[in-house]
């Protein structure tokens, strides 16, 4: 099981890299087509306003298929590992990094299906690949759980919910990056700013409640294990900061003067906070420190 999990992880990593390369080729093909002005207005889809413009469709299809393959391989890797360890993928940074990468792939594929925006992959996949690369630097050996981590169900749900939130936030980050690199009105055949704004919002609409749930479940667990639902432990405080930033974003989208660029900037800030929360273990101690590299 342990070996199978490792093989599946490698397969997932390779598929993700290939998916990224194909996505870049797909983006470039659109660029060229846009330059040549040969756009035959391939906007026949029913989802009006969400057409990506002229691109070599088959390359895009391969990119998507490879991303699916990567997600499937990582799913297998996590499932095998769960069987090997007997608990969910939360006991150390290796397991959690693979799960985070998995969450990104799944969230990306979900939004890609819904909004037909493959180019989100240009940002989302590098993040997922970076996490997998990071995972390879951490020993993946299986170690028994310290007592505080032995409350399996609560912990599994706590982490699973966090993964969904983090995956959605990465998609929002991708949308914000693509939004901010373009001049007003759109450029380079990238998704239209309005569409990106919508995708960013929708990912937060998914991610925000999931982050809320993560924090609440963390508080429930802290109350059970440590007798105090909130103790300003650095990790929980960092997730609270993340939550506040995305809360601010939800308001920014409806306040004059904050809409658009500033809202997108808050998505970048939120993602920075997400990463800080995630990697926080490495530079602050606290009650979560046992979940670190040891």
């Amino acid at each position, binding site marked *: 099981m342990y070996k199978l999990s490792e093989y599946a992880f490698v397969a997932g990593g390779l598929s993700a890299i290939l998916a990224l390369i194909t996505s870049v080729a797909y983006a470039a093909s659109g660029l060229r087509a846009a330059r040549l002005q040969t756009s035959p207005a391939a906007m026949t889809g*029913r989802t009006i306003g969400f057409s990506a413009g002229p691109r070599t469709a088959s390359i895009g299809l391969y990119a998507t298929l490879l991303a699916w393959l990567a997600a499937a391989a990582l799913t297998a890797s996590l499932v095998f590992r769960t069987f090997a360890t007997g608990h969910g993928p939360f006991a150390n940074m290796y397991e959690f990094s693979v799960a985070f990468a998995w969450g990104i792939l799944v969230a990306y594929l979900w939004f890609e299906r819904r909004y037909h925006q493959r180019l989100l992959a240009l940002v989302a996949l590098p993040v997922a690949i970076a996490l997998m690369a990071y995972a390879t630097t951490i020993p993946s050996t299986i170690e028994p759980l310290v007592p505080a981590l032995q409350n399996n169900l609560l912990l599994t749900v706590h982490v699973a919910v966090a993964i969904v939130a983090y995956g959605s936030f990465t998609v929002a980050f991708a949308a914000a990056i693509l939004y901010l690199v373009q001049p007003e009105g759109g450029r380079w055949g990238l998704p239209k700013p309005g569409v990106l704004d919508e995708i960013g919002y929708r990912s937060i609409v998914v991610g925000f409640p999931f982050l809320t749930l993560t924090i609440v479940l963390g*508080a429930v667990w802290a109350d059970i294990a440590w007798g105090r639902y909130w103790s300003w432990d650095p990790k929980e405080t960092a997730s609270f900061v993340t939550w506040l930033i995305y809360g601010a974003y939800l308001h920014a989208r409806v306040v004059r003067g904050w809409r658009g660029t500033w809202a997108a900037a808050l998505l970048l800030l939120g993602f920075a906070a997400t990463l800080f929360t995630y990697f926080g273990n490495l530079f*602050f101690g606290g009650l979560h420190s046992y979940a670190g590299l040891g």
Partner: protein
Amino acid sequence: MADQARTRPVPGVPPADALEEVPLIDVDGALERLWSVLTSMRLALVLILVLAALALAGTILVQAPPGVAADPEARAEWLNQVRPKYGGWTGVFDALGLFAVFESIWFRLVAAALTASTLACSIRRLPGIVMTATRPHVDVAEAFFEHAPHREAVILREGPTAARQRVEATLRGHRYRIIAGSDGATLYADRFRWVPLAGLVGHLALVVIVVGALVGATFGFRDPDFVIAEGSTAAVPGTPGLSVELVSFRDSYYANTGAPSDYASELVLYRDGAEVARQTVRVNDPLRYDGTSFYQSFYGPAASVRVADEAGTLLFAGGVPLAWSMNEGNRRVGTFTIPERDLTVWVVGTGGPSDLVVRPGQMRVEVYRNDGSATPVDAVSLDPNKPAVIEGLSFTFDRELQFSGLSIARDPGTPIVWLGCTLLFFGFVIRFTVPHRRIWIRISRQGGHSRVAFASVGRGDVSLGAEYARLIEEVGRGPAATDIARGRAATRA
């Protein structure tokens, strides 16, 4: 959510701004100004970000342990410890309260302002939401049908009366409520009209959580470092009449890594001497009795010590938890007092095999007079069961025990906090997943046919747009309608 507050769905004007312009409750003079500040979304946004920045400082900077801030001496010592890390900034951070952010005046002020603002906002939004649900704005200008974010028109091969019946039947089939406009040509249909209240509940939930935290801080009690040695009974702090006994403590370790696999304290609770509860407490499995909870927190060695006077009367007998560690020599220490002789005794455990003063297996007692003197009256390293006489008293070290570190808490605010969390989560989930559907319809005669125009507010929402599109398709699918003019515009600008 703010859609509801507007008196007229003006195309292109985003919902929340309209909210800021419509004072729904008027309060006089200064109060009015305060009110408008508190209900400003811009202020809310800034407050949220400031709170985030303060909390971030609390994660980046080392926070002083509780109690240190109040004790000037401990504080100075603690600051010296962190000075190498922050250099010249140490004083600045300390002056700004950033080493105890969550107790700082800044944090409290911002949190209080945000709570007040959230409450004010909710109060302000309520009438608009109720109004939209009960007496919605039905009559809209013609231009609305040309500029609304969602809009479409179909031509039906039947007269306006039949067309209207068809539209109403279709919408009713989808559980829409329908209200006719005064001009006879306009219809308003909506569904889930009370859902915007969920957003309000989500906001109020934040206030509920703050209330819960305040209740806990005011009426609660917490001792995170309660130590008790095996075989001892001690009064439970903060809970008169209650005492706790540690019957035994067990710990076990993983053979391969040496990491703890389990540790557990067998506790018995007494109320006025009578046993009222008994449980083996482990991490994740606290003992809860009458609102007070006992959590397994940490553990360590203890010494069973006896002190008898010249006549052989026992002045002290029991387990002394060696709950502190000394920087010097890596030794663990504990303490107890002998009030009859006005003495304080420190019990010092061994620092390990290389410790020549307190050798492994030994326990050292250092006896101090309670007059503030820093030098002990005497100090002796005791072997088990070999008494030594100090100040005329005989000190015996029986054997080594273990102590258990418990966190004892009583927090009557917790249920309120859980209520708030539940409302928060479900409030926002419902608000996000079940949009208030609102459609305005205008039916006009066009030759022998009728033209049905649909329009709806709300930002571009793909699934909602698709739902509207399906509804409209269904309207156009009737036998009389073979000629459908599709005039749907892009759902977004």
